[in-house]
């Protein structure tokens, strides 16, 4: 009896050792921790980067971010305001529930709740209708040609699981009690949430039953992902160099040269879909923070052009960004639908021209203004603003810099309490409309119009073009986008600066595609 037990123990031990040899863990670090595990509560990158391993959406994304079949295998615009999605059969949630049309209807309703932060992705949706167990119709208020692209950001939850755990709405902060979804997740994805200790670690375990492992291209062999937030830049890099973590999502630019030379570490470079601009107050009759009284110099196109000419973008690219930026003259990078290469042209750096334009506009001696800037939101944001303030001062516009942490900074610009500010803008829908509607539509129109237009830009022609982007499709829509990009260049409501680059640093034995939305997908990660 005894020896039998000993043999069994030995066999179990050997089995465990074999399994350990098979186990391929990636220890992943980034500066921020996801605030919640709820898929419809907070639309921020730190949450999505973890949850997209756990949850699937109707539409998935390829490594180049183009749409791919996800929980829906096919979709078509049945009528102008009705999209039909055919669901993938045989999919199960991690806790065993079958995935059906009920869950799709429920998830979209949940994302439509006022406590959801995902309104932008479902704003055109009137309702979702179950046709049969594996078919769903989504009815929109207006024709929405880019709905599938938006639905790639809406994760699917199990209705019965949410009801059982009393989590049919995203967390409401006013409630006294924590919701089940804050620390638990039940998706259909490639990894399931094995352990969640907020601000300490999040462990994801491979879901061997994931539908995608049978699909071509998902060659990932990682069995476990351990995510740990490490806020201090120096410590995060030290942990990578000392072998305590395998993958760092956000290495600081100043450490890249060192990382490239470190043994067993590699840096994966790639662009991010995020563009930085200087935004002018063109709405007020008198600037809030300037010595010019009775008029607003930024309402004069020549002044905006002058300040554009004054910026030496190559100097910023070389010295401040250490080559890790893509200087641009347009609203969004080429991965976004609607990009036109011919419109991506900057006004050249020409300080003499800048001075001449200022004199022509009636400011031969320049004027003073305050530039508002965050100091912990975008890569090297404060240094960029310091450069710009110096360049403007050189042509006579005496620029005072007010750099603050993102909390007070965003609070201030959202009150439009600024004369000119730095803004970075990402495009999660990968479509031009998102940027035009939020940044350049006249404020107070339709829902979502001008919600980030704090410079008060308003041009009826632009509004008309945005209206066409919302309702038209095909070539007519592309033409409207092209025209709007031209108008953006002519009007100079912003000075575009550059698209950010987001290098990832990892151990040399890991290979995975770089994602321009800064959201790694471990389904494609291979550890050798």
């Amino acid at each position, binding site marked *: 009896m005894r020896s039998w037990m000993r043999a069994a123990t030995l066999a179990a031990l050997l089995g465990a050792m074999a399994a350990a040899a098979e186990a391929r863990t990636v220890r992943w670090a980034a500066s921020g*921790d996801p*605030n*919640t595990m*709820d898929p419809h*509560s*907070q*639309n*921020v990158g730190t949450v999505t980067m973890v949850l997209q391993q756990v949850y699937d959406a109707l539409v998935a994304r390829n490594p180049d971010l183009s749409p791919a079949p996800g929980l829906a295998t096919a979709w078509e615009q049945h009528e102008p305001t009705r999209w039909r999605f055919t669901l993938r059969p045989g999919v199960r949630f991690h806790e065993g529930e079958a995935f059906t049309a009920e869950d799709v209807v429920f998830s979209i309703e949940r994302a439509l709740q*006022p406590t959801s*932060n995902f*309104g*932008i992705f479902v704003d055109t949706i009137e309702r979702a209708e179950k046709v049969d167990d594996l078919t769903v119709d989504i009815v929109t208020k207006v024709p929405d040609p880019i709905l599938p692209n938006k639905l790639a950001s809406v994760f699917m939850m199990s209705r019965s699981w949410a009801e059982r755990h009393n989590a049919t709405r995203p*967390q*409401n*902060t*006013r*409630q*006294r*009690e*924590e*919701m089940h979804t*804050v*620390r638990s997740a039940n998706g259909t994805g490639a990894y399931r949430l094995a352990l969640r*200790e*907020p*601000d*300490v670690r999040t462990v994801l375990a491979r879901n061997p039953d994931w539908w995608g492992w049978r699909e071509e291209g998902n060659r990932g062999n990682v069995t476990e992902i351990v995510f*740990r*937030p*490490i*806020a*201090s830049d*120096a*410590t*995060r890099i*030290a*942990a990578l*160099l*000392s*072998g*305590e973590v395998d993958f760092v999502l956000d290495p600081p630019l100043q450490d890249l040269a060192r990382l490239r030379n470190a043994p067993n570490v590699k840096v994966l470079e790639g662009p991010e879909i995020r563009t930085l601009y200087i935004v002018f107050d063109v709405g007020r009759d008198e600037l809030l923070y300037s010595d010019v009284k009775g008029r607003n110099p930024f309402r004069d196109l020549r002044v905006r052009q002058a300040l554009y000419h004054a910026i030496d973008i190559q100097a910023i690219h070389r010295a401040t960004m250490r080559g890790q930026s893509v200087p641009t003259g347009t609203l969004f990078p080429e991965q976004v639908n609607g990009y036109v290469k011919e419109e991506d042209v900057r006004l050249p750096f020409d300080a003499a021209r800048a001075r001449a334009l200022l004199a022509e506009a009636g400011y031969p001696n320049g004027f003073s203004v305050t530039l508002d800037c965050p100091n*912990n939101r975008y890569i090297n944001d404060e240094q960029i603003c310091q450069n710009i303030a110096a360049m403007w001062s050189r042509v006579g516009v005496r620029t005072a810099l007010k750099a603050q*942490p*993102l*909390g*007070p*900074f*965003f*609070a201030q610009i*959202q009150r439009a309490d600024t004369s000119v500010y730095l803004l970075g803008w*990402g495009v999660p829908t990968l479509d031009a409309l998102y940027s035009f509607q*939020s940044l350049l539509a006249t404020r*107070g129109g339709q*829902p*979502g119009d001008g*919600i*980030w237009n704090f410079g008060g830009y308003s041009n009826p022609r632009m509004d008309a073009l945005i209206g066409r982007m919302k309702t038209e499709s095909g070539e007519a829509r592309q033409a409207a986008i092209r025209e709007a990009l031209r108008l953006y260049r002519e009007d100079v409501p912003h000075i575009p600066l550059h698209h950010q680059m987001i290098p990832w640093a990892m151990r040399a034995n890991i290979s995975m595609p770089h994602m321009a939305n800064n959201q790694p997908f471990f389904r494609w990660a291979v550890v050798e």
Partner: protein
Amino acid sequence: MFAFILSRILQALPVMLTVALISFAMFAYVGDPVAIMLGQDFTEAQRDALVRELGLDQPFFVQFAKFVVNAAQGEFGLSYRLSRPVAELIAERAPATLELAFCAAALALLVGVPMGVYTGLYRNSWLSRFFLTFSLIGVSLPTFLIGILLILIFSVWLGWLPSFGRGDVVQLGWWSTGFLTWSGIRALILPSITLGLFQLTLIMRLVRAEMLEVLRTDYIKFARARGLPNRAVHFGHALKNTLVPVITIAGLQLGAIIAFAIVTETVFQWPGMGLLFIQSVNAADIPVMAAYLLLIALVFVVINLVVDLLYYAVDPRLRVERGAVRGA
């Protein structure tokens, strides 16, 4: 004694209220939690609804009164950032900070006092000079730099110790401890040194100065004249009389260690209350910040009380005076 404690507690109340008022007033400037909670995309209506829901549209003193009433019942609401009860969050992080502070304080006392005594007794030995030079580093280098240097040497170059985190912890009821696992103890070493180094050098210099002072006094000369052995003179008479200021400083420094573990915790990603506070500042998570500041105020109040009580134990003169007052 009881009356003394009671009076100190009554004195503490206005202190706590003032801290609450100052911190609450400060929050008007840390940023707008609504902006951060709504993220990049929202409508005006959503914004107004959230402002009303959080009660941010009410007058300042109404908000403050509500806050004090709730705080008195230990009710701090839900963290804006993590959607979890604040009291639970703080209780979860407190063990990490307290264990780190305990190790740092133990290090400062157990190493600092002997070093102080040694440098006081043997003023001119080369080892004393070395200690004094070394203590200058501890006093003058900022904490985050010490932490990063230690990480560079012991994690990156030598690979001996972990550069971040707490290692594996064991749950004892609600308390999570790192003392019971090998990786937990290893993880404690670098942060404890970083946090305790300043206090260590401070205590060493203080003990040395006091020792020099005391060794000049008459009763030490009499003790020597009585032929007492050096050990009794140094430790029984001299050291004991240096302890009153040392206890005061060490006590206050313990409060400082707990309160200012923030920098060390950020450098080492130590999942304690200080790191929680920093993350809350970045997200303008007012409920957590308010609770943390009140807790730190409470820690200082309690430590002051304990220090006062320790005086009685160390300095018999105080006991006599009290006794005389009571007898009169």
